[in-house]
Structure formats: structure tokens, C-alpha cells
């Protein structure tokens, strides 16, 4: 979707790999959301997805190594907002992710991040960049006015 001036939008931010930047990226998303007319009811959920992806990139992808980078792209085109979060890790096979709703996982304190991303975005896929970086791409349909979870 084009912004108010008729342009597609692409914002790229590269930060050192540290949790202190998660709030910054959340704030930027708030501005981008207004420009691309993300339905307000979805903003918190998309922000939650972004935060989960960035925290994963810092803690798991880059293993808390402050010398590494996290890069976030927010791009709107064709009625979709796509957010890609890149880290310098090796990635992981998605099949190791288990359903946190299963009885044996319900009382575990972690393991819900990717699950929430999948609930609150309209598409999430893992990427391997040509430069070897690992990425998570999240797609949001800007025409969906309701929070996704309400249709579950």
C-alpha cells in the first residue's frame, strides 16, 4: 500500500545486537503503521510479533553477541506490510518448534514467541539470505481490519 503521498514505503534499520534497541524498533513500527494505515486494532499484535522476532534474533540468532548486527526491514507494497528481521546466526529447523499449547508444554516459561508471531501475522517464514544471514519474514495484510485472533 502506498503511503499518504502515493509512495510505497521501505524502512531499513540496522542496530547492534542488543535488547536495548527493541523499544526503538517498536517505536519506528508505530510511525510506519500510521503511514501505511495498518488497522489500529492490529498494531499492538504486530508490534508484539516484531518484538518477539527481534528478541529471538538477539538472544538466539546472535547469541547475545553485541558485535553482531540485527537488521529490520519494514516494507509496504501491494496492500501488505512485510517485516523482515535478520540476524547473523545459522537459523534452526522450524520442526524443532513445538506447540506451546500442548499439555506437556503449557507450564514451560518459554517457547511461545514464534507461536505468537504465527498467530498475529498473516504469514511467517524463515529465510536464508544470499549473504548467509538468517531471517524471519512476517507478512501483514493491511486490508484485514480485525485482529487475527478474533477469527480463531
Amino acid at each position, binding site marked *: 500500500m502506498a503511503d499518504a503521498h502515493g509512495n510505497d514505503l521501505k524502512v531499513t534499520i540496522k542496530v547492534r545486537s542488543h*535488547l*536495548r534497541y*527493541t*523499544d526503538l524498533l517498536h517505536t519506528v513500527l508505530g510511525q510506519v503503521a500510521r503511514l501505511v494505515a495498518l488497522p489500529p486494532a492490529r498494531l*499492538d499484535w504486530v*508490534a*508484539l510479533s516484531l*518484538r*518477539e522476532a527481534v*528478541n529471538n534474533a538477539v538472544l538466539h540468532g546472535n547469541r547475545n553477541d553485541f558485535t553482531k548486527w540485527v537488521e529490520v526491514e519494514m516494507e509496504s507494497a501491494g496492500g501488505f506490510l512485510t517485516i523482515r528481521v535478520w540476524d547473523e546466526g545459522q537459523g534452526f529447523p522450524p520442526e524443532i518448534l513445538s506447540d*506451546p*499449547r500442548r499439555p506437556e508444554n*503449557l*507450564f*514451560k*516459561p*518459554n517457547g*511461545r*514467541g514464534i*507461536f*505468537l508471531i504465527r*498467530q498475529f501475522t498473516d504469514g511467517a517464514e524463515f529465510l536464508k539470505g544470499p549473504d548467509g544471514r538468517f531471517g524471519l519474514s512476517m507478512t501483514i495484510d493491511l486490508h484485514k481490519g480485525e*485482529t487475527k*485472533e478474533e477469527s*480463531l
Partner: protein
Amino acid sequence: MMNHRTYEKDGVAVLELKGSITMGSGDVTMRDLIKDLLQKGKKQILVDLGGVSFMDSTGLGELVAAFTTARHHDASLKLVNLTKKIHDLLSITQLATVFEYYERVDEAVASFRK
């Protein structure tokens, strides 16, 4: 950023939380506050989430950890004043089946006497 207030109501320790409970902000504070209540021998703990504007998977995980830690201390932990968003989060993750939660503090406090 998270603020908190602790008070006692009819023998129940009420922990009122305000702000965000996310990775690196509020998560450790909440854990420490509940640990502190348990170390003081509190057996009935009510966490008031009415002022919590944002919670991520780490915040959810801390709530679950608090619940199990309370159980290990023979204490019970319940929730009150869930915002719609937090209720949605608990429902989606099926944690709504784990926690006992109430709409009002007096109703929640009374539930400990049953």
C-alpha cells in the same frame, strides 16, 4: 517500564502491576516481587494486571513461572483485572486454562476463602 504496588486485602497479598512486562523490562521485577511475597510466607497472592498495557511471551512466561513457583511453596496465585489484550493472549496460548482469573479484586479476594 513497569510500576508496582503491593497491599494486603483480607489476608490476600495483592500485587498491582502497571506498564509493560516484556523481555528486559518488568519481567525480572515481577519475578522478584512474587519471590519476595513467597519468602515472606504469603500463601494467597493476587496479581492485578489491570494497568498492564503490553505483555510479550517473556511476560507470559514469567506469569507461568510465578504460578508454578507459588505452587511449590504451597501458595496459590490468581489473576484479576485482565485487559482484553491480556485475556486474548492467555486464551490463544491456552494459559487461560491454567490460571484462575477474576474481573474484580473483591471477587478474587473472596475466592481464596472458598
